[in-house]
C-alpha cells in the first residue's frame, strides 16, 4: 500500500500536456479504484433518487404492459396505421432506439481500436445502454406483426408444415438477422468485459449470498497471466468484429427504406447518414443518462470534463454530418429534376407535417451548433439540456422520414394522413420507462465502470522493459 502511494506521487513517465484534463482524477491507486467503484454496489447506501426513478420506471412499465395487452387482444387495428401510412410510430421508435444503442458499441469497440483511452470509464455504461435500447427497439417490429408467436417462421428459417422459407431477398429479413446478431454480440461483448470485474466483486463482497452470485457469474476467474493473454486477444477481436457490425446494422436499417421505391426513401445517402445519426443520438443519450449518474454517485474522478467534452465534440461532428444529409436531401429534390422527389421535399416543408420538419432542423441542425463554444461544452447543465433536444430531434428525423414520405406518394388519389392513437403513445412512453428501469437496476447491481481497465490507465501500471 505504501509502495503504491509513493509511486503514485512520483511524476508520471508520459509527458503531461498543459490544459489537458486527465481521464482519471488525481490521487487514485489500484485499490482506491476498486474501492470506489465496487462500493456503489456493495456498501454505499442507495440514493433515494434512485428509488424514486425505479418506482417511476416501474409505473411506466405498467403502461407498456397495458398497451401490449390491448394490442395482442385486439390486433394492430388499434394503432393509427392505415393505407398509405403502414409504418408510423412503430418503425419510427424502432429506428430511434436502435440508433441510441449504437453509441455503446462505438464507444466500446471503435474507440478501443483507435486507442482512445478516455473511452474506458464510460464504455460499460454505454454498452448496458446499448443492450436495453436494442431490447426496446426489438419490441416494435415484433409487436407490429400483431401475432409475434406466429411471426417466428416468417422471421427465422424454422422448418414448418407449409415447407416455406423466409424471403432472404427482402431487407426486412436482413434487418432480423442484423438486429438479432447485434443484440447477441453486444451482450457477449459486455459480459466478456465484465468477467474480471465480477471476480473483483466476488473478492470484495462480504455477504455470502452476494459472494456466491458474483462467484458464479465470474466463473472462477483468477487473473492468471495466461488467461489474461487469451482474454485480451479475444476482447480486441470482439471489438474488431463489433466495429463493422455496428456500421452494418444501421446500414441495413436504412436499407429497409432505401431499397424501396418511395420518394424520399430511395436514396443512396441513407446508409452513411443513418449511421451518423445513430452515433449522434447515441452520444446524446449517453450524456443524458451519464450526467445525472455522475452527479448522483460523485463519479467526477472517473467521468471527468475530458470525457464530457469529447462526447460533446462527437455530437457536434455527427450532428453536422446529419445536417449535411438533410441539406443533400433538399438539394437532390431540386437537382434530380424528378417530379416526385421534388414534391416530396416540398411537401415535407409545406405539407401537413411541416412543423415536424422545421422542428427537426431546429433540434438537429441549429441547436447543436452552440457546441462550438468550449464554455457550453463544459457546462453540464446546458449540455444536458442540449442532449434532450437532440434526442427529440433524432426522433423527429425518423418520424419525418417514415411518415411524410409515405403519406403522399405518386398518385394523389392514394394520399392520406397519419396520427398515432393513445395505444401507440403508451407503447412508446412505456419503452422509455422500461429503459430507465433497466438502467437503474444495472447501475445498482453491477460495477458500472470497468475497474480493471481503469487500473491500466494509472502510470504505475506500466512496466519498464529491461535490456539484458
Amino acid at each position: 500500500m505504501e509502495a503504491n502511494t509513493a509511486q503514485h506521487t512520483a511524476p508520471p513517465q508520459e509527458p503531461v500536456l498543459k490544459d489537458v484534463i486527465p481521464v482519471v482524477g488525481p490521487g487514485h491507486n489500484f485499490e482506491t479504484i476498486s474501492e470506489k467503484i465496487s462500493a456503489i454496489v456493495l456498501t454505499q447506501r442507495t440514493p433515494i433518487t434512485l428509488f424514486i426513478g425505479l418506482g417511476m420506471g416501474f409505473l411506466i412499465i405498467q403502461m407498456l404492459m397495458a398497451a401490449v395487452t390491448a394490442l395482442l387482444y385486439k390486433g394492430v387495428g388499434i394503432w393509427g396505421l392505415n393505407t398509405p401510412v403502414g409504418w408510423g410510430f412503430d418503425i419510427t421508435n424502432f429506428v430511434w432506439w436502435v440508433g441510441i444503442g449504437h453509441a455503446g458499441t462505438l464507444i466500446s469497440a471503435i474507440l478501443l481500436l483507435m486507442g482512445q483511452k478516455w473511452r474506458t470509464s464510460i464504455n460499460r455504461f454505454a454498452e448496458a445502454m446499448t443492450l436495453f435500447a436494442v431490447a426496446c427497439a426489438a419490441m416494435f417490429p415484433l409487436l407490429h406483426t400483431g401475432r409475434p408467436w406466429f411471426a417466428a417462421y416468417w422471421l427465422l428459417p424454422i422448418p414448418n408444415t407449409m415447407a416455406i422459407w423466409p424471403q432472404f431477398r427482402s431487407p426486412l429479413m436482413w434487418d432480423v438477422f442484423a438486429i438479432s446478431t447485434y443484440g447477441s454480440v453486444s451482450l457477449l461483448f459486455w459480459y466478456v468485459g465484465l468477467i474480471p470485474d465480477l471476480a473483483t466483486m466476488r473478492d470484495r463482497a462480504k455477504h455470502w449470498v452476494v459472494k456466491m452470485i458474483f462467484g458464479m457469474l465470474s466463473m472462477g476467474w483468477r487473473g492468471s497471466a495466461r488467461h489474461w493473454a487469451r482474454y485480451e486477444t479475444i476482447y480486441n477481436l470482439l471489438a474488431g468484429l463489433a466495429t463493422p457490425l455496428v456500421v452494418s446494422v444501421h446500414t441495413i436499417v436504412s436499407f429497409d427504406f432505401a431499397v424501396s421505391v418511395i420518394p424520399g426513401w430511395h436514396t443512396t445517402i441513407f446508409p452513411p447518414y443513418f449511421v451518423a445519426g445513430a452515433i449522434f443520438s447515441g452520444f446524446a443519450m449517453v450524456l443524458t443518462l451519464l450526467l445525472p449518474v455522475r452527479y448522483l454517485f460523485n463519479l467526477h474522478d472517473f467521468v471527468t470534463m475530458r470525457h464530457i467534452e469529447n462526447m460533446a465534440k462527437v455530437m457536434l461532428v455527427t450532428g453536422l454530418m446529419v445536417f449535411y444529409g438533410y441539406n443533400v436531401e433538399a438539394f437532390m429534390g431540386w437537382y434530380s429534376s424528378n417530379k416526385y422527389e421534388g414534391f416530396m421535399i416540398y411537401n415535407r416543408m409545406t405539407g401537413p407535417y411541416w412543423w415536424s420538419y422545421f422542428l427537426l432542423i431546429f433540434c438537429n441542425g441549429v441547436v447543436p451548433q452552440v457546441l462550438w463554444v468550449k464554455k457550453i461544452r463544459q457546462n453540464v447543465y446546458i449540455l444536458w439540456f442540449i442532449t434532450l433536444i437532440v434526442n427529440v430531434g433524432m426522433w423527429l428525423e425518423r418520424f419525418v422520414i417514415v411518415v411524410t414520405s409515405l403519406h403522399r406518394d405518386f398518385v394523389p388519389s392514394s394520399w392520406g394522413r397519419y396520427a398515432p392513437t393513445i395505444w401507440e403513445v403508451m407503447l412508446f412512453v412505456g419503452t422509455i420507462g422500461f429503459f430507465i428501469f433497466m438502467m437503474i437496476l444495472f447501475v445498482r447491481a453491477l460495477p458500472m465502470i470497468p475497474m480493471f481497465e481503469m487500473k491500466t490507465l494509472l502510470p504505475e501500471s506500466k512496466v519498464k522493459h529491461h535490456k539484458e
Partner: protein
Amino acid sequence: MTEKTKLYGLMAEFDNPQAIVDATNAAYKAGYRKMDAYSPFPIEELHEALHFHTKVQYIVLVAGIIGGLLGYGLQYWTSAIDYPLNIGGRPYNSWVSFIPITFELTILIGAFSGAIGMILLNGLPQPYHPVFNVPRFSMASSDRFFLCIESEDPKFDRRTTAEFLKSLNALEVTEVEP
C-alpha cells in the same frame, strides 16, 4: 502444515507490476516452468515473461469462415434448391441480396466461438482452484500481484523454492494447499 502434505505450490506476493514481471523473468531464468502469475489487470509483459503465446485467435478465423459459409448456404439452399420462388424475375441464387445475412452470420458465429473458446481454453467455469486457499489471494483482483510456482515443476523443492522466492523481494511467501 506437516511435511507430509503435498502442496499445490508456493506463492509469492508482490505489490507492483514491475516487481511481478521481474520476479517471473527471474523464475523462468532459474529454470522454473510450471508456474503462473496472477494480476488484477492485464500486463502484456507478464505472459511474455512466462513465454506463453496464445492461439485463441485462430478459433475466430475458422469459426467466422464457417459462419459465412453456413449463412450463404442457408440462403442458397432455401431459395434456390428447397423452395425456388421467382421474385420479380430475380435469379434463384440472388447472391447480392444474400450478402448482408452472410456477413451477419460470419460475425455472430465468429464472435461467439471466440468468446466461448477463450473461456473454455482458460479452463473456466472452474468453481474450485487451489490458489483461492491463500487468504490474501482475494487481493489479486484489486491491487496485489502473485507468482505461484507449482509443485509439479521438476525443480520444485519446498525449501529451496521458498528461499528463491524470498530472494526476489516478495512481500510474503505462502504455501498453497492443494
